[in-house]
């Protein structure tokens, strides 16, 4: 296949708006293609396929959201067609809708952001049903008893061995840490208040957990860094906890050419104020710190007005949400591993807090100078559903659009944030980085997010001419074009044409197989036998995700031996 004459943005390879052909053969970008298939992309924007590095798209909590929200299900209902299966949902779409809607946006890869090992089978059962896109799942470690014990005992070797085992047991891709220690404390109705607040019964602090898991992550040389949801997330004044967390790990070095820590949905961790009354943005402080510390990355967690379904392993946070908003609430205890919660809510333009939160997400992305440090996300469906990515991109590219939006919001969005004074407007290079090249680099996927030879043949083509269109003024066109890709090509196959799905191939699932020394692995095995005998509700032999659950794996090797 040859994609002819498109205006290509491939920042990883230094291609910035050049008119050029892209050839794909056997699912990969090649120098020259033998078959005669041609796609005319003249006058159109061509980028690598989009990559979502943080979304909640599969597993127990997503399904809990669906079960709790039949009203959301009917909002996105679409009948089946000859090619497509029935769709439902807006904030919590069914599996089919997730794949189709990503593809229509020009996205070809999406990672589920939080999976407890105990529920990883469910995650993979759903990932298997998500069509078209490649996917993977990050595994939760931040409140696991084995982790807490290894950290308490200072046994880094055993911790690394357990992380490797946990990734294998969950067929997971990376180390996710959510409110470290807080999830365990929630089992007793408590939380941790900061990074030096000890976890009940274990005596370890969030600082020690984060440092331990980061060092284990780097000892194993995993493709992705630790992926952190900070303590005190969602609370006024939490930017201090966020900065304290980052300062606490400045001395740790990355083992690979990538960040050493990814802080996720930063919007929820960049709050000032002593309470909701004097709530304000501290995004400039956070972005300023990131500008001075290139070893860290973040994603936006942009808020979208309207319906959202919050779902997180941060169970105490969800308890607070449910109480504050008198909303539906699901709370879940995941045995020795995590706790979790789900709360649906509505973000309102005239709600002061929501309006400020909206501004914070944009501030973070625009004030962080290096776009390689920021990923565009909405923390789907916590900040809002991923189908709104074109809206976020239009906001990043157009100050005029931001001003129009600000005028429709509660005035505190302007006075309690720096957004009105930010002039920066992202160009297509920046957008290609924050939606493609950046997430690929941050996740450690060398074949994704670019169009160099050997890259996956994942391409998105949009019906806008970047040479003629001014995104600053014509932001409506930008949003419309990005919402319905002219073509989405997945592994060399056209899956979307003129915004409609035309083929439904099955993507692959990434997971990381990390090797560890046998003596460390043996220590972990002995601990696990003990824990499963004494505490777990399932047998160790029934616990691991078997290969049957991951029918099209893409295994990435890592480890110390």
């Amino acid at each position, binding site marked *: 296949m040859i994609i002819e004459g498109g205006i290509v943005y491939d920042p990883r390879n230094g291609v910035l708006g050049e008119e050029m052909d892209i050839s794909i053969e056997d699912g990969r970008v090649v120098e020259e293609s033998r078959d005669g298939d041609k796609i005319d992309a003249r006058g159109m924007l061509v980028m690598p396929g989009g990559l979502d590095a943080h979304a909640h798209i599969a597993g127990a909590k997503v399904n809990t959201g669906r079960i*709790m*929200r*039949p*009203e*959301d*299900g*009917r909002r996105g209902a679409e009948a089946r067609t000859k090619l497509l299966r029935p769709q439902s949902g807006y904030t919590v779409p069914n599996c089919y809708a997730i794949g189709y809607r990503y593809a229509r946006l020009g996205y070809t890869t999406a990672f589920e952001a939080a999976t407890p090992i105990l529920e990883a089978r469910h995650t993979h059962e759903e990932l298997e049903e998500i069509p078209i896109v490649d996917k993977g799942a990050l595994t939760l470690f931040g409140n696991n008893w084995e982790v807490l014990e290894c950290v308490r005992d200072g046994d880094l070797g055993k911790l690394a061995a357990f992380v490797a085992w946990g990734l294998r047991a969950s067929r997971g891709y990376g180390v996710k840490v959510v409110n470290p220690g807080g999830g365990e404390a929630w089992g007793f109705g408590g939380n941790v208040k900061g990074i030096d607040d000890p976890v009940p019964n274990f005596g370890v602090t969030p600082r020690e957990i984060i440092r331990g898991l980061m060092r284990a992550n780097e000892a194993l040389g995993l493709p992705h860094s630790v992926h952190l949801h900070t303590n005190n997330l969602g609370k006024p004044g939490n930017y201090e906890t966020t900065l304290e967390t980052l300062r606490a790990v400045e001395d740790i070095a990355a083992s690979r050419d990538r960040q050493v820590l990814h802080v996720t949905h930063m919007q929820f961790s960049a709050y000032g104020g002593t309470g909701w009354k004097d709530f304000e943005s501290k995004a400039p402080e956070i972005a300023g710190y990131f500008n001075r510390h290139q070893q860290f990355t973040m994603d936006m967690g942009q808020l979208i007005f309207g319906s959202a379904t919050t779902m997180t392993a941060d169970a105490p946070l969800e308890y607070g949400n449910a109480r504050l908003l*008198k909303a539906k609430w699901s709370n879940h205890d995941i045995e020795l591993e995590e706790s979790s919660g789900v709360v649906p809510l509505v973000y309102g333009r005239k709600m002061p807090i929501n309006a400020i939160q909206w501004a914070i997400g944009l501030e973070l992305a625009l004030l962080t100078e290096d776009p390689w440090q920021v990923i565009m996300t909405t923390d789907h469906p916590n900040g809002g559903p991923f189908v709104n990515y074109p809206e976020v991109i239009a906001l990043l590219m157009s100050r005029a659009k931001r001003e129009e939006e600000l005028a429709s919001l509660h005035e505190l969005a302007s006075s309690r944030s720096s957004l009105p004074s930010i002039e920066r407007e992202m160009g297509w290079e920046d957008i290609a980085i924050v939606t493609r090249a950046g997430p690929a680099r941050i996740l450690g996927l060398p074949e994704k997010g670019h169009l160099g030879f050997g890259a996956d043949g994942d391409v998105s083509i949009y019906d806008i001419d970047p040479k003629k269109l001014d995104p600053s003024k014509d932001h409506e066109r930008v949003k419309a074009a990005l919402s319905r890709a002219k073509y989405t090509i997945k592994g060399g196959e056209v899956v979307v044409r003129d915004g409609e799905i035309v083929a439904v191939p099955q993507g692959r699932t990434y997971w990381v197989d990390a090797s560890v020394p046998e003596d460390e692995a043996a220590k972990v095995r002995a601990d696990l036998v003990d824990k499963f005998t004494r505490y777990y509700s399932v047998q160790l032999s029934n616990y691991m995700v078997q290969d049957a659950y991951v029918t099209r794996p893409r295994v990435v090797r890592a480890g110390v031996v």
Partner: protein
Amino acid sequence: MREIRIKPRRRFLVPVEAEGISPDVLAPLTLEDIERLEVWEGNRRSRLSDLFAIEGDDGPGEAEDAYLLLRGDFSRVKRIGEKMTCGMIEVDGDLGMHAGNGMAGGEISIRGGAGDWLGREMRGGLINVSGDAGDYVGAGYRGESCGMRGGEIRIEGDAGDYLGEHLCGGKITVLGDAGDFPGIANRGGVIIIGGDAHLPGAEMASGTITVFGRARVLPSYQYQDTVDIDGRSLKKFLGDLVDGGKGELYVASLEA
């Protein structure tokens, strides 16, 4: 006024989805176009004229001038008057489920009974029922936090269970009895029940429920005092305290 008369050609054994039978949909169409409208009977797609005899004034016209006269057994015909904003539907017979879904204006008048979910998530307008109505009158559909927000529903007979569930506004009057849990989880609006009711206002946050007959009151309601309404003496309660609610419940006679 443009009159359109609609009559079932036969008895339906499976439900018919007839959201097209509404002034807003039919008014701009000629009779010929109306006959060609798509309608589903179970899993089978038909034209409206396959299932119904349609006659009356040829159109097109404005929706506010439309008068739909439905004669016969519509008890298995669902979603009549869905999302209507104006005009009039008169029914000589029984009406099926989901009549007046999300209705915003106009009037539905039923000389007969109504099925479940009458006026669900209604925003405005008026529904009159001379017979009984089913369960979930003026309620929100599964999972919704708001059912009816405005408008009025009057039922001369009895209503089923969960009358005005998640009611957020508007007014529902039942001259007869209501079933279990009228006004459950309501957040506003007015419910008046002429006869008896069982456990009204469970999880009520705000709103008013008046029961002129007998009712069993939840233990999570706090007695205030006796008040006079329409010349009758009723006991006033506040609740539902389980939910920190500030709803008002008036009951004529308490069931032990």
